[in-house]
């Protein structure tokens, strides 16, 4: 189905951001594991894979609209050098993602493209969930301090 060019461009912008976070959270997961923070490593690996599933939905939607999914373009991958910096950069990225997705939902609604709206809303819920988890971590850090918080990240949940 021939899609609206503005919708396709917006979907590609969302795709670029998803592809960027796949890489960012994957390298975050590996660095957390290298430092010994198994719990954070597991969480970020899962998030990276969730972002890949989001990218899959977006690519399928763009193809359905007869657009060309752009898998060549990436935004800067923001690699933090400490655990807390990684969490900070992740929340920064998630906040931008939520804003971008809400703008996408508004555009899809304006264009009467309910299918695209639903795809974006589903992705948005996932990003909000992770942003909420990240905010919880900052609240924990505020309450118990960096050292106590990090000592709880050394073992995974199993």
């Amino acid at each position, binding site marked *: 189905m021939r899609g609206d060019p503005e919708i396709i461009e917006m979907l590609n912008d969302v795709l670029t951001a998803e592809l960027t976070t796949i890489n960012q959270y994957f390298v975050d997961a590996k660095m957390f594991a290298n430092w010994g923070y198994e719990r954070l490593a597991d969480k970020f690996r899962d998030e990276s894979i969730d972002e890949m599933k989001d990218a899959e939905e977006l690519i399928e939607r763009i193809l359905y609209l007869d657009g060309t999914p752009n898998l060549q373009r990436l935004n*800067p991958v923001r690699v933090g050098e400490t655990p807390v910096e990684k969490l900070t950069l992740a929340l920064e990225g998630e906040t931008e993602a939520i804003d971008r997705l809400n703008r996408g939902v508004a555009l899809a609604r304006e264009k009467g493209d309910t299918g695209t709206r639903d795809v974006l809303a589903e992705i948005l819920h996932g990003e909000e969930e992770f942003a909420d988890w990240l905010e919880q971590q900052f609240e924990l850090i505020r309450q118990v301090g960096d050292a106590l918080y990090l000592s709880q990240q050394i073992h995974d949940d199993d």
Partner: protein
Amino acid sequence: MVVCHCRSVNDRTVGAAIADGAASLEEIGARCGAGTRCGGCRPMLDALLGAAARVTATTVQHAA
């Protein structure tokens, strides 16, 4: 944060190069190597240069 992944240069090192007088991508590259290989970080380096210029402008404004 690692800004230039090719040369492994972080934002603090780039900030120090700018504070040391680097005012262009070439001058940043000459001082710390950032942005001298694949070029993927150049938009980020531009943003850091822009942020530093804004801070300087605000400081000058406050000082005046």
